[in-house]
């Protein structure tokens, strides 16, 4: 990542709204699943994306790949805006953009053999045929740690971890440059999770891949990622190098998320005080005004309800969206009660 910091994908103000109707004659409403996300995914990096269920992380990943159509905004990939491509032009791009799904049981066709599953993308893009195709499939199976003997077997003959390997081989078959890994380890057993994380990491280095690693598991995200983005109700609220986000989280939400993860050490567990978040994530149909986290934030002040905080740089390469902190005063615990040092910062940002 240090050697190459060009963005591979540049997301600009991406928005995905879903229309919903509560009853047959009810009012039409919109779920603001992704609401104005701007983000660069750098070539060769693993960008971790964390957040609670319903925060829009999966929708964001799918919107980048046009698996759901964005309502507005751009996704720039090799000089083109994916969001505005025609479907045939988009299909040509799909060779470079792949996805690995959460559920290795639902994402493989039970009536196709492993060989058929892995070679289907090769056939779709006309990349290899006949003996060459078989050879490629065998090579891919070896790369993901599956014996090529299993070529003719069906998905139900494999365990969850092995199925996830099949899904990874399928994604790799077309030599993509970018992979969205959507909760790739959440459905797996603890002993298998580390196998898949190590495999993904090895493949990234060998094949020079770029990942968007989506997960609710902060420990896993922190371990595999170069940078981590934290999402809350359709917005990115913090973005920082993985180490920094764990060592010095700035947003009250990120602090609470990290403190909620149980640590496998009884001494640490006995000694620590958890930041308990009250209540639950509000509905994305009617998100709170201003800062969306304010309804659960222990540091919220009146101004938080009226100003929508922008994602600004607080520390070097460390961005956060909160009016109560600024680059001069990044520690929210130390900010004077009622003060909002970030307000000027935010205003300046808006005028810039």
């Amino acid at each position: 990542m240090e050697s190459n910091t060009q963005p591979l994908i540049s997301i600009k103000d991406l928005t995905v709204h879903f229309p919903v109707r509560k009853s047959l004659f009810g009012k039409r409403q919109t779920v603001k699943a992704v609401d104005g996300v701007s983000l660069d995914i750098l070539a060769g990096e693993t960008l971790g994306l964390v957040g609670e269920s319903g925060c829009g992380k999966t929708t964001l990943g799918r919107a980048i790949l046009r698996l759901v159509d964005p309502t507005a905004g751009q996704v720039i990939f090799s000089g083109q805006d994916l969001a505005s491509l025609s479907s045939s032009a988009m299909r040509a791009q799909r060779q470079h953009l792949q996805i690995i799904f959460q559920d290795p049981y639902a994402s493989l066709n039970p009536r196709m053999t492993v060989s058929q599953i892995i070679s289907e993308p090769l056939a779709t893009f006309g990349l290899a045929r006949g003996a060459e195709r078989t050879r490629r499939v065998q090579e891919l199976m070896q790369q993901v740690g599956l014996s090529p003997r299993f070529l003719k077997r069906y998905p139900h003959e494999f365990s969850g971890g092995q199925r996830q390997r099949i899904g990874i081989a399928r994604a790799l078959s077309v030599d993509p440059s970018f992979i969205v890994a959507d909760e790739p380890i959440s459905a797996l057993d603890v002993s298998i999770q580390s196998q898949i994380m190590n495999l993904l990491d090895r493949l990234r280095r060998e094949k020079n891949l770029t990942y968007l690693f989506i997960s609710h598991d902060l420990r896993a995200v922190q371990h595999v990622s170069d940078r981590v983005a934290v999402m809350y109700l359709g917005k990115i609220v913090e973005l920082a190098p993985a180490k920094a986000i764990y060592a010095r989280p700035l947003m009250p939400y990120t602090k609470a998320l990290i403190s909620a993860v149980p640590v496998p050490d009884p001494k640490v567990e006995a000694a620590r005080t958890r930041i308990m978040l009250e209540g639950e994530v509000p509905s994305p149909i009617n998100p709170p005004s201003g800062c969306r986290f304010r309804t659960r934030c222990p540091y919220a002040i009146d101004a938080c309800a009226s100003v929508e905080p922008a994602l600004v740089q607080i520390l070097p390469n460390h961005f956060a969206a909160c009016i109560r902190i600024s680059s001069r005063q990044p520690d929210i615990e130390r900010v004077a009660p009622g003060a909002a040092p970030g307000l000027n910062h935010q205003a300046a940002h808006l005028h810039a």
Partner: protein
Amino acid sequence: MPKSNGNLLSVKDLRVYFKTEDSVVKAVDGVSFEVKRGQTLGIVGESGSGKTVANLSIMRLISEPPGQIAGGAIEFNGRDILKMSPRELRDLRGCHIAMIFQDPMTSLNPFMRVSKQLMEVTQLHLGHTKEEARRHAVEMLEHVRIPDASERIDSYPHEFSGGMRQRVMIAMALSCKPQLLIADEPTTALDVTIQAQILNLIQKLKTETGTSVILITHDLGVIAGMTDYVTVMYAGKVFEQAPTPELFERPGNPYTKALLQSVPDPTSEQGKLFQIPGQPPDLANLPSGCPFAPRCRRVEEVCRREFPPFVRLTSNHFSLCHFADEVYAESAT
């Protein structure tokens, strides 16, 4: 009821088998553990380790056939659950032992108002009148901190969020002040912030009421924070038993050690994670020796040939391993 040596529950050499078309799956095979009064026992294991089957057997919720409790005893307050009449079992299930499951949506009746589901329990088991039951139900919901309990009580389960549904389940489970609460992966389907709320709630209720808890989970972090004593299961067997601090500090079994090492630690360097090679075993075709041998770092010839002994390391620390003493000694350094 007769009291027995501080143990509320003791499971002895439990065997639960499932007959399939061409084989017998030994889901639980010779499992023993104890729950002391007021204590929380953690049971940790991967899918297929038998942790859920063992606990369903305590409630006698294994459907027979295909399942079959092939042997052992489950003593609750000194009485063997396996020998109880259906009537005694009904009393036991509602009143003395309660269970909450991973997915609250599938454990609540979607067609019934929450109020009715909660009231049913105390009307049946405590002989409450309708008014008493309703008052008690509202109290229970307030107890598990559901806001506006007296209004929300007439909602249907789908009108609650996942975390709220799990609170309703806990309220229902605790309605009759059970002596034992079995929580089977109670927070696995929930977000971390909601998980923290629910675990906090279980902990608080436990200290208030003195209920004993069996907490089944695959998350070692949850085990570390919530339990007094841990049982580690693998392939239907107990692999290690120890007081919680000791298990984390000085594991005496290669499987426990490997599990602890494969959890990413945010404070350490990134890089290759420790990984346990191979796949969890197929319970219908277990190897003849130690079931963990094919994946074990410490494996020797004897492990593949002979089933390991259950070694006593200290008065309350046990490990199923040919080299338990050696592994335990190594962990000290």
